[in-house]
């Protein structure tokens, strides 16, 4: 039982929570010692390899392929060969393959969840309750579109593009794979997908699902590797590139593709404003703030990393937030009680540390709840900065870690102006009890997704994507089909 300390005149403060460790068993997963390239339904022996780690323990998990440009071009050629038959299949048949994949993912979700947490560092309760159900739902959702494309784009004779090269990030490895592969296949394209360098394992396990579903060889090809593999895929003769990742890399891809005529969609970084008005349900808002920035260690492109609180409630909101932060359990990603897992990689940890140091230097006030971080692995305590000016780097740059910057505002106009004062425009949050104000704010916020009285909520039917430097194109919903079809302005 929790020991609760009572303070006069304020809410009870949880003093210490004790839980027995409740680790999820690793036994359900069998990781191969070595993985090749999944091309044409076969495992090809790679010429170069690297080792993938568990970020929570730094223990090596497997040797995986570092695909070379030649190998990438070969995968694209194989995907090209598979395209003719796959695109000629009746949509209703393509749909059945996708339904199968959705079902297999549901069946094997525990296995995938454990592997996702092991390789990526995210808490098992998130991979189990968010990543896996959403990934399966995404395949199920797009399966149903495969034979209904004419309803999505009436009179446009929608046609698949050909081979899609897809490059995904390390924050939601399997879910991003689902976001990319499901609509591409539903529309009749074949794909070559490159998982992120640090999190290849669930994509490699997905190859097993592809075989289990008896998907025709070459329709889905997976090539692992670092940024150079991604660059090789961008340069390869594909018809479309879909990229999710940092704005810097997105811009590099844009210049690389300049004049090539290849279709492109980009889902890039963010520095989202989460805006709390004085009439909001404060406790509910505090939960939303925590979910907005500490979900998945803040490794979320739409993370609510800038908190704007109306001045009159700034103090109680920040107080409650700090108290809530003290209850977050940081540690073993495989423990079912864990709220905040491991930082995905050493490089990312260093980036977070560098920006947090800059926040301190520039004069912001830092708060971190007392918590013991494991000695091995990559960890960063949940962090909140107050007394932040808009010009500070921690208010301008994407940190992609569990670090929140708190700013204040007085009027709704001021909130809008400050929230929009960023080159990004992926998402925003609004907390108020007033429905008309939600819509007033939503109309003015320059962001592709606006959550009201909730945050970081996703659904396969809900289009997701950015304004401004957060990229273009949508994933999810009917609009998520457009980038994979010709005859519908899909490059728009």
């Amino acid at each position: 039982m929790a020991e609760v300390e009572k303070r006069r005149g304020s809410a009870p403060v949880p003093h210490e929570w004790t839980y027995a460790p409740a680790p999820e068993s690793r036994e359900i997963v069998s990781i191969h010692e070595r993985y090749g390239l999944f091309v044409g339904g076969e495992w090809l022996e790679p010429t170069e390899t690297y080792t993938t780690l568990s970020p929570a323990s730094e223990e090596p998990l497997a040797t995986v392929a570092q695909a070379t440009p030649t190998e990438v071009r070969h995968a694209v050629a194989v995907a090209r060969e598979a395209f003719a038959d796959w695109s000629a299949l009746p949509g209703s048949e393509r749909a059945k393959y996708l339904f199968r994949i959705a079902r297999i993912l549901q069946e094997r979700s525990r296995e995938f969840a454990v592997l996702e947490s092991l390789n990526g560092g995210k808490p098992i309760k998130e991979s189990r309750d968010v990543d896996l159900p959403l990934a399966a739902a995404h395949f199920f959702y797009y399966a149903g579109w495969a034979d209904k494309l004419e309803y999505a784009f009436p009179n446009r004779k929608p046609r698949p593009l050909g081979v899609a090269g897809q490059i995904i990030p390390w924050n939601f490895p399997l879910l991003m794979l689902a976001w990319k592969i499901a609509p591409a296949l539903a529309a009749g394209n074949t794909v070559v997908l490159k998982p992120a360098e640090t999190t290849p394992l669930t994509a490699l396990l997905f190859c097993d699902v592809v075989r289990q579903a008896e998907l025709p060889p070459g329709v889905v090809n997976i090539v692992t590797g670092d940024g150079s593999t991604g660059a090789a895929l961008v340069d390869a003769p594909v018809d479309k590139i879909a990229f999710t990742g940092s704005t810097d890399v997105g811009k590099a891809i844009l210049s690389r593709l300049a004049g090539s005529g290849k279709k492109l969609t980009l889902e890039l970084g963010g520095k989202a404003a989460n805006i709390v008005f004085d009439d909001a349900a404060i406790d509910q808002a505090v939960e939303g703030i925590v979910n907005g920035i500490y979900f998945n260690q803040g490794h979320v492109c739409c993370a609510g990393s800038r908190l704007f609180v109306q001045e009159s409630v700034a103090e109680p909101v920040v107080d409650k937030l700090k108290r809530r932060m003290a209850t977050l359990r940081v540690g073993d990603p495989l423990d079912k009680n864990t709220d905040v897992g491991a930082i995905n990689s050493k490089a990312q940890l260093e980036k977070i540390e560098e920006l947090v140091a800059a926040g301190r230097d520039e004069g912001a006030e830092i708060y971190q709840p007392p918590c013991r971080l494991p000695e091995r692995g990559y960890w960063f305590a949940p962090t909140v900065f107050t007394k932040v000016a808009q010009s500070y780097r921690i208010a301008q740059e994407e940190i992609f870690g569990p670090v929140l910057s708190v700013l204040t505002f007085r009027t709704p106009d001021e909130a809008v102006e400050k929230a929009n004062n960023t080159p990004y425009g992926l998402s925003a949050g609004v907390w108020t009890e007033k429905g008309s104000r939600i819509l007033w704010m939503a109309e003015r916020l320059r962001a592709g997704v606006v959550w009201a009285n909730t945050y970081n909520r996703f659904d396969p039917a809900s289009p997701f994507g950015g304004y401004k430097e957060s990229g273009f194109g949508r994933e999810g919903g009917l609009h998520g089909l457009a980038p994979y079809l010709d005859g519908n302005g899909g490059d728009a």
Partner: protein
Amino acid sequence: MPDRLPIKKTYKLFVGGAFPRSESGRTYEAQGQNVARASRKDVRDAVVAARAAQPKWAGATAYNRGQVLYRIAEMMEARAAEFAELAGGRDEVERAIDRWVWYAGFADKLAQVLGSSNPVAGPYFNFTVPEPTGVVAIVAPDEPPLLGLVTRLAPALVGGNAVVALASETSPLAAIELAEALATSDVPAGAVNLLTGFRAELAPWLASHMDVNAIDVTGADGLRADLERAAADNVKRVVAGSPDSQSLYEISAFLELKTVWHPIGM
């Protein structure tokens, strides 16, 4: 010697609803006339004017924007003979006028055909609406000088964007005539800005301008790859269309999609 000396027109730029000369003071010769040769500074002034005008234009009701576009068609029809002389003849002019009419009728249908309400899990009303991307730069094709410009301009404008367009370099007079029609219609000052001059001199500044949200490179010819590279700096939306096409998707290329999760509760 004629009985009466005709008054010759000075061909100027169209920026912020006014007709300034190029700040550079330079002109160039095209179609037998001296035409303003805009400078980098003129480009920036035009972007500032467009940015200032955009919120009000986007904030007008869709029905109102439709009427404003229709009014442009009315103004052009009245000047059809002049346009025919400056552009490629009567047929081009009529098609340009009809293009405005077609897009005018789309203004108040965009949210219905491009938006959606999305069935999500949980107590949320989830909907997606199209919104203007902001300031759009257009590099209009040389040919056809009037229809090409209108083909690119109308779809960008109808969705609520403000525009800075570079006219046909070889035949800019129809664009200037169009500016005069726009100035006498109900288009708010600054919502459309038209520059004449050398494409290779001006387009790169539009492509790299950090306050331009999208660029239409339909008329960019050999400059296209360079413009796309410059546009990467702020992740501009790049559109390469046709000088003679007309579709819903010409409009959506200049729109963003916003999805809102609105709570449902007591």
